[in-house]
């Protein structure tokens, strides 16, 4: 019998927070549960949108950081 999974279970699954056993169970459930498949694809879709909406700082900001590091008179720690 296939175990029933919740949206919370799917969330943990897409963020790789489920155990190996849970992974197998969820993947088996995804093969035969159309509603779960739909929830999964919708979840993956929005998370990939979140990935794509990242923004970058300006080159000026990055250059300022690198310049600070180079000019920093703090001693480097040699190990």
């Amino acid at each position: 019998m296939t175990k029933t999974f919740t949206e919370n279970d799917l969330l943990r699954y897409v963020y790789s927070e489920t155990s190996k056993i849970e992974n197998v169970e969820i993947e088996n459930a995804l093969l035969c549960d159309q509603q779960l498949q739909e929830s999964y694809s919708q979840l993956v879709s929005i998370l990939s949108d979140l990935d794509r909406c990242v923004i970058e700082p300006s080159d000026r900001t990055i250059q300022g950081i690198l310049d600070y590091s180079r000019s920093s008179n703090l001693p480097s720690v040699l190990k």
Partner: protein
Amino acid sequence: MIRKEVSDSQLVSLYKKGDEAAFEELVERHKSRVFTTIYLIVKDQYTAEDLMQDSLIKAVNTIKSGRYNEEGKFLPWLLRIAHNLAIDHFRKAKRYPTIVMEDGSNVFNTLEFSEDSIESLQIKKDTHALLRKLIQELPESQKEVLIMRHYMQMSFQEIADATDVSINTALGRMRYALINLRKKMQKTNIAYDQNFYRK
């Protein structure tokens, strides 16, 4: 020099020995994630640029003075610095929202001001800018979990511990954040990916 095969931990070790190129690679690898985390909290690009610099300068000072704990991972550590600085700024901005210059402009470039100017212009040509704006409009508890899980890469258990709630509450907040984003997108009536999360 790009060294994709070298781990963050190895780059930090090289940087400690004075290899500035190693630090440059670390910055290049993680600048987007750190900047996005800050930006989603403070809602203002200029403030985010300043806090980005402050975060990295703090990281530089910590590493170069030998106070960096090598047990932890570099990115989560850097993101914690950035998150804390952004939250501090956000709280101060909320506490002192009405300080103005002689010409009437807001000295802190407040959240409302920034939303109406830079971001609103971007939205017209950038759907992802709209998504960022919608994230910023989420209830604080939902936005916090979304940023911590998706951009700061904290586990749901770590988020639960950091925010003093159960893991189920953290998961529920994340789920509602995603549901709310979908609803807000529909409300804006902007053509978007029709596979957006439905519930």
